[in-house]
């Protein structure tokens, strides 16, 4: 398609809009100037040359016609020289040729163009521009005809005689060479003027292109600025609308789009906030009745051993589900704290190894979990949140993974890594990206699980609250491994988190 229009391809190939505008304007200006100045130049040159030639031909013709009467023929050398001398002027040199003889002088008829000499034989005045020694000259050639001698007194009755022609050929040829250098200089001045015109046109074209480019490119730049801001998430970004042209239309469309987007995103955010607040409110509202229920189930648990049959099973079921519900509500409250940004850190200097052992001990997992915990690692952490992280990860590993479950810490220069791994089959590739999603069930066949479905999400939020992160991966040897990365502010004095 592009091969059809090389000019368009050339313009399209230019890098920026400004360059393309500049090139287009410059081409337009220069081609217009070249056309006008070129036509002007050619016409003026032809007129100058034609005028010079006509004048020269007229001059030589007049000189020939006003020669003193030619007496002898064939002409003597003296006559030839005299004719040539009389026909020569300030600007031109003439030579008179009769058969194989010629007038004395610098001009050699043999150097004249042969076609011109042949044309002279036809009995007409001919001329030709040629280059002689690299200089432009005009060569005029003609035969010299002779007027007939005066008619004698008519004999009686001779009136009926048909008159002969007034002139007759003489075999005398005249060549005149005139330099065209003055004309060449005039034409050179014309050319200079034409080039100058082109240059001025180019300058004007470039100036116009710059002005037009500014008019077009400024709104484009403004639009780009606004688009960039919108892309970076600033939904209040608007383009300034200037004028009523197509670019202003684009800016207006952009503004409308941005406005709609801002409204929709605002609505979505509001709806999400409301939903979260609703969850938080519901959780809070459930806490009080749950506390009462827990108290009741504690009593039921004591009694359940004594209750017979179905009644005892029902009492144990109610008790178990009530504990689970309490855990779920507590997790929901925790999550909603993160969502509303009200979760805060209560930092303390914590002996990491001791804190992890305490967590395992408190839940009775000490003999089910292998630990590799270097002693004396002290970090500035929120001990309660570290406990939540470790508890959630280990609980997850015990529930979904296979033994051996291990906890080990690695002290790195800038951070502390805590790895919780298991010996199970690991996480499926399609599960891995979603493992931290709330209520995500890796095993869909298992409708109910022990956990709330929020454990990993809460663990990650806690790690992030510390300025760290939680990642999940599979060991090459098999088994899933969850790694908590916690920054160590102590090793980085600049980091005050």
């Amino acid at each position, binding site marked *: 398609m592009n091969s059809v229009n090389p000019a368009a391809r050339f313009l399209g190939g230019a890098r920026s809009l400004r360059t393309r505008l500049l090139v287009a304007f410059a081409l337009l200006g220069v081609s217009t100037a*070249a056309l006008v100045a070129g036509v002007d130049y050619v016409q003026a040159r032809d007129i100058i040359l034609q005028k010079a030639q006509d004048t020269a031909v007229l001059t030589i*013709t007049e000189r020939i016609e006003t020669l003193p009467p030619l007496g002898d*023929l064939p002409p003597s050398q003296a006559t030839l020289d005299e004719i040539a001398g009389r026909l020569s002027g300030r600007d031109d040199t003439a030579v008179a040729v009769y058969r194989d003889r010629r007038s004395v002088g610098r001009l050699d008829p043999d150097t004249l163009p042969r076609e011109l000499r042949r*044309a002279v034989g036809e009995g*007409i*005045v001919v001329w*030709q521009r040629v280059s002689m020694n690299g200089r432009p000259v005009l060569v005029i050639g003609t035969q010299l005809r002779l007027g007939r001698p005066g008619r004698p007194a008519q004999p009686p009755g001779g009136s009926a005689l048909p008159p*002969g022609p007034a002139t007759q050929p003489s075999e005398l040829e005249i060549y005149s060479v005139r330099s065209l250098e003055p004309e060449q200089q005039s034409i050179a001045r014309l050319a200079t003027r034409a080039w100058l015109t082109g240059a001025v046109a180019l300058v004007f074209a470039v100036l116009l292109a710059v002005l037009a480019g500014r008019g077009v490119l400024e709104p484009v730049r403004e639009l780009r600025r606004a688009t960039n801001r919108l892309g970076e998430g600033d939904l209040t970004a608007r383009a300034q609308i200037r004028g009523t042209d197509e670019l202003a239309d684009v800016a207006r469309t952009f503004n409308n789009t941005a406005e709609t987007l801002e409204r929709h995103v605002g609505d979505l955010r509001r709806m999400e906030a409301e939903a979260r607040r609703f969850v938080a409110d519901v959780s809070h509202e459930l806490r009080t009745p749950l506390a009462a229920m827990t108290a009741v189930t504690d009593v039921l648990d004591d009694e359940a051993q004594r209750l017979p049959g179905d009644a005892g099973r029902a009492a144990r079921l109610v008790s178990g589900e009530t504990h689970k519900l309490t855990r779920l509500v507590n997790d929901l409250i925790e999550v909603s704290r993160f969502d509303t940004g009200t979760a805060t850190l209560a930092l303390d200097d914590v002996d990491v190894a001791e804190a992890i052992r305490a967590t395992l001990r408190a839940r009775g997992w000490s003999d089910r979990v292998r630990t590799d915990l270097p002693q004396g690692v002290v970090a500035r952490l929120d001990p309660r949140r570290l406990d939540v992280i470790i508890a959630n990860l280990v609980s997850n590993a015990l529930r979904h993974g296979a033994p051996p479950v291990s906890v080990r810490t690695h002290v790195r220069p800038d951070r502390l890594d805590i790895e919780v791994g298991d010996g199970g089959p690991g996480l499926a590739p399609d599960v891995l990206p979603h493992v931290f999603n709330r209520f995500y069930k890796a095993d869909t066949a298992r409708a109910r699980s022990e956990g709330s479905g929020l454990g990993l999400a809460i663990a990650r939020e806690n790690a992030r609250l510390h300025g760290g992160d939680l990642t999940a991966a599979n060991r090459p040897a098999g088994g899933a491994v969850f790694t908590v990365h916690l920054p160590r502010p102590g090793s980085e004095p600049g980091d005050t988190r």
Partner: protein
Amino acid sequence: MTRRPLLALVVLIAVLSAGCGVRPSGVIRGGPAPAAPAEGVNLYFLANSSLILMRRPTRQHLSPTQTLVLLQDGPDGDERAMNLTSEVPTGLDPITVTIDASGNVEVVVSADVTTLSNTAADQIVCTVGDALSTTAPITLTSKAATRGPRTCPLAG
């Protein structure tokens, strides 16, 4: 991608530059050749056996008969130096040139016109024609015979 337009630009500039200035032309044809005034008498002699116009300066105007006498006398010294010759024999006298009412020119000579060579006849016809400023056919007549009417082959 920018190479082809650049080439075009160079070619354009080259063409513009080449079109500048005064360029040689072909042969331009004008009007008929101009004529210089002339005086004297026209005689036709021979150069390398071909008829040639020769003009000899004279003080006063000569009649056709007087002109024919000059022709009969042949080239003078200078003219012979230019290798001019004549085939017109001497002994044509007395010569009379008559023109009748219908424009027929008759040259009456005393020698026998049939003995004249064609070239000599042309010399006489051309010379008389120029002397009378006419292209009319001319008849050569002697007592016994006539030649012509004929016209000058160089007329025009």
